[in-house]
């Protein structure tokens, strides 16, 4: 007997519920008041019996009900391996799946795995065909499928575990295809792995051909002592200082006085000695580090000898973040109330990116005011002359522009080359208590933050007046008022982005500035028009990232951690992280200047060594495994037919029927007892 979903067996903890109910349920939370205990006190030792279970039959009924329910959810099945003798003779199609994830570096796993594969291949008959599938998160067939053992054996000496994690799905898929296409009378699938549970998310839809013999060779062990840097937290203090905290863990064993070091730009800046209790993460916080203008590369390392070294080190990069220069152009303040006050307050709130806000009068803008700005905001004002030309030039270079229409925004206030929409008449809806923003494009980056349920209630803002916007060709409407009029329109001008909003942020034409969505809405518009994106401090091995360094189209070289050197084009090529370490982007030529660096780390999920029951995997892919346990004693089991599998797994159905019957019985018995108890006075 086994279980397809053994995780559900944790539900047996629910047995504590009836135990608790029958031990304590009849006991009131508060004490039962009684006039005098002078008689009860004379009866000795009876209070001990309060811990006894009451209504034992009902308790047993409930416990049995929970037991059956949990067992049903865990999907029990019968283990019935088909004897070897039942397998027909004939040539075999053998597929060997060899796990080359980095956890296979642990101890002697890899050498044992290679030895097993070698022995398996050596034991094949000349008529047999073999395929070696190497897999980690991906699967590859290094030698043509269906080769002879002699063609594969020389390859084994050159193989090493890679830096990636484990996923059984791709490898099994490859095996499924090979075995399904094979006309050999006997099909064998041998899986050599440390069988980490994290590699089988139970989402894979793989069914191997019927009567395929499955030979699991589990090499892992549930207890594998290992020290690792589980994660690194980077907390910025201002733009150029960062506090680095590492979460360090020792699995399976205590590690007293373990040194943990922080290296920045190849120099050890701090070394701490910490006691690592088994399976309890320890947070190691290092002093704040000041970043250089070019950025910094950092490494946190758990020092000392370890059976698994890849997870001892965590790489990261840190970039200095200077405030984003923002220009606010608005009409001069003529009254006590500044119409742009709410906008300025919103922009002054610290966030990422940090903003450096300057305000100018829109009608007096000149080229120097615009130069170097990443974002320009024009609040209820017109643009003309040199200012308009400078803004257009800056936007074409990549800056963002946010236009807000209002009472001071005439029909020709926005230059034609920049405007996402023509400005129309004022829509006055004050008599109907204002309109609302009814249709919002929540898949757009500006509104992505508000996509979740219960977030971003734009309908709470009332718009009493707004300008009718007529989108120009090529512009996108991102939001509309409830009468269908565009509220927010987007357009791309050169390399820059322009957003136009139909109403000002003045709390007069609308009350949006006093609504909770205002601050995040403004922030998201700023992030979008600025084209800002946070640079992740590290990537995972296997991921890709664009190389954005200065102007696009430049040829640069990437020096990888293994001494690799690749030529890429900035803004066009994607960099793929094949190994853990730093990837330095340098300009061409000897001693080329480093313009950018990336960090890549192995997937830490791979350090989780909890094993997967091969039987469970076998059932999931189509049948029961044979009683294999290692390369020496591995008779071949046969994958059962669909009907046979269904029959073996059908136990849950009977269990659920039993649960239903028990539930009815429990209801009847429980009601009867409740009636008896209700007739007793309070306190009983």
């Amino acid at each position, binding site marked *: 007997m086994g279980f397809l979903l053994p995780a559900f067996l944790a539900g047996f903890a629910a047995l504590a519920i009836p135990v608790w109910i029958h031990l304590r349920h009849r006991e009131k939370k508060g004490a039962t008041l009684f006039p*005098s205990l002078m008689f*009860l*006190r004379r009866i000795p030792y*009876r*209070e001990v019996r309060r811990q006894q279970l009451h209504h034992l039959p009902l308790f047993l009924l409930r416990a049995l009900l929970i037991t059956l329910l949990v067992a049903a959810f865990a999907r029990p099945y019968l283990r019935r391996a088909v004897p070897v003798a039942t397998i027909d003779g004939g040539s075999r199609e053998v597929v060997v799946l060899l796990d080359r994830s980095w956890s296979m570096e642990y101890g002697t796993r890899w050498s044992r795995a290679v030895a097993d594969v070698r022995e398996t291949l050596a034991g094949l008959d000349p008529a047999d065909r073999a395929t070696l599938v190497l897999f980690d998160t991906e699967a590859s067939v290094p030698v043509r499928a269906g080769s002879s053992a002699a063609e594969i054996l020389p390859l084994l000496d050159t193989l090493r575990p890679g830096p990636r994690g484990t996923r059984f799905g791709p490898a099994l898929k490859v095996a499924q295809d090979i075995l399904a296409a094979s006309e050999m009378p006997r099909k064998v699938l041998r899986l050599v792995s440390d069988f980490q549970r994290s590699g089988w998310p139970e989402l894979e839809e793989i069914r191997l051909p019927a009567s395929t013999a499955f030979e699991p060779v589990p090499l892992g062990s549930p207890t594998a002592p290992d020290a690792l840097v589980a994660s690194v937290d980077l907390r910025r203090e201002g733009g150029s200082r960062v506090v680095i905290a590492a979460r360090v863990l020792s699995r399976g064993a205590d590690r007293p006085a373990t040194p943990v070091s922080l290296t920045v730009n190849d120099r050890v800046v701090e070394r701490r000695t910490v006691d690592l209790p088994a399976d309890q993460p320890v947070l190691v916080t290092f002093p704040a580090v000041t970043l250089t203008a070019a950025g910094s590369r950092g490494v946190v390392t758990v020092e000392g000898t370890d059976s698994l070294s890849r997870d001892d080190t965590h790489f990261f990069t840190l970039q200095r973040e200077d405030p984003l220069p923002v220009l606010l152009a608005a009409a001069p303040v003529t009254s006590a109330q500044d119409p742009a006050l709410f906008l300025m307050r919103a922009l002054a709130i610290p966030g990422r990116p940090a903003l450096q806000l300057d305000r100018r009068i829109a009608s007096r803008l000149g080229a120097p005011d615009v130069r170097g700005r990443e974002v320009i905001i024009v609040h209820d004002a017109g643009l003309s002359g040199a200012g308009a030309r400078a803004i257009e030039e800056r936007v074409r270079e990549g800056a963002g522009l946010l236009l807000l229409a209002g009472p001071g925004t005439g029909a020709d206030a926005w230059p034609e080359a920049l405007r996402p929409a023509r400005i129309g008449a004022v829509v006055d809806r004050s008599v109907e208590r204002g309109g609302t923003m009814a249709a919002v494009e929540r898949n757009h980056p500006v509104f992505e933050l508000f996509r979740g349920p219960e977030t971003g209630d734009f309908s709470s803002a009332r718009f009493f007046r707004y300008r009718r916007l007529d989108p120009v060709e090529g512009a996108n409407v991102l939001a509309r008022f409830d009468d269908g009029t565009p509220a927010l329109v987007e357009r791309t001008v050169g390399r820059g982005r322009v957003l136009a909003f139909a109403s000002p942020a003045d709390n007069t034409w609308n009350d949006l500035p006093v609504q909770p969505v205002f601050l995040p809405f403004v922030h998201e518009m700023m992030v979008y028009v600025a084209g800002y994106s946070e640079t992740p401090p590290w990537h995972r091995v296997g991921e890709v990232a664009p190389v954005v360094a200065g102007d696009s189209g430049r040829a640069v070289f990437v020096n990888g951690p293994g001494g690799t050197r690749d030529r890429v084009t900035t803004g066009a090529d994607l960099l793929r992280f094949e190994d853990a370490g730093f990837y330095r982007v340098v300009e061409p030529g000897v001693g080329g200047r480093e313009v950018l660096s990336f960090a890549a780390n192995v997937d830490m999920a791979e350090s989780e060594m909890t094993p997967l029951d091969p039987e469970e995997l076998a059932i999931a892919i189509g049948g029961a495994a044979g009683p294999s346990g290692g390369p020496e004693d591995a008779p071949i089991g046969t994958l059962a037919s669909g009907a046979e599998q269904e029959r073996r797994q059908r136990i849950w159905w009977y269990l659920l029927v039993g649960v239903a019957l028990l539930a009815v019985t429990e209801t009847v018995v429980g009601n009867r007892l409740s009636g008896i108890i209700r007739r007793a006075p*309070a306190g009983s």
Partner: protein
Amino acid sequence: MTGPRHDPTRATRFLDPGVLAAIGNLELLARTVVEGFLHGLHRSPHLGLSMEFAEHRPYNPGDDIRRIDWRVLARTDRFYVKEFEAETHASITFLLDISPSMSFGSGQVSKLDYARFLIASLAWFSARQRDRIGLITFDGSIRETIPPSTRHLTRILHALDRLTPGAGGEPGSALGSIADRVRRRSILVIVSDFYDQPESLLEGVTRLRATGSDVLAFHVVDPAERDFPYEGAATFEDLESGERIPLVPGDLRGDYQSMIAEHQATLTRHMGSQGVDYAILGTDQPLDHALFAYLSRRQAMARIR
């Protein structure tokens, strides 16, 4: 204890404690109880009392012709009716236990409420007899004293209306203290749940009897105290001391009921030996049981006199 024969099917509806609990006004409650009780009894309220002549007045149509003084008629040839004034014979003091255990009630009426109803009814009844009535409340010691007087009905009812449970203590010692205050022979009506050692209670009652007074003891018992119907495991808290004991009551019921029965038997035996009328009143019982007990005792005293 013996008393007048009682037809339980008549007029006892208003004597049910559960019904009485709905009457907010204690005087109205007492009046309801006594009038209902007497109505069911079909007897004169002036039972066992001698009447004292006050004066003659001319006969008016409608007067009871039995009250015409025939001797005066013979002498004067005029109809005169005799006016009488009831004698005030007895001094009655109600001794009410207000210890916290009396606040217990498993049903609609707590023991203290029941005791209040009982004393209010008896007081109102006694006031109609023109007895002097007083009240002493006690827990471990004496809490409030209203000396006996024919005009103290309202005061007693008011005191009963506002009383709250007192502190814990032994009623036996409190009864001894009360005995020291009794100055003249009277009827002492003790209403208590008698949670004390029988020896201590007996000592207190003996001292009360030593004053020459007649003593009636009403032992108020809640049905839950009597039957102990609790089932599930629970922590029981002593209302007197606050002590808590975890128990499985179902296992203790037999032993507990035996002890309670033995306690009551001991009290019955000892109090009987002291000439004390001892009656057990369940708070689920109509009040007429107590009224009969009281009445019979009152009659017996009137006969002695």
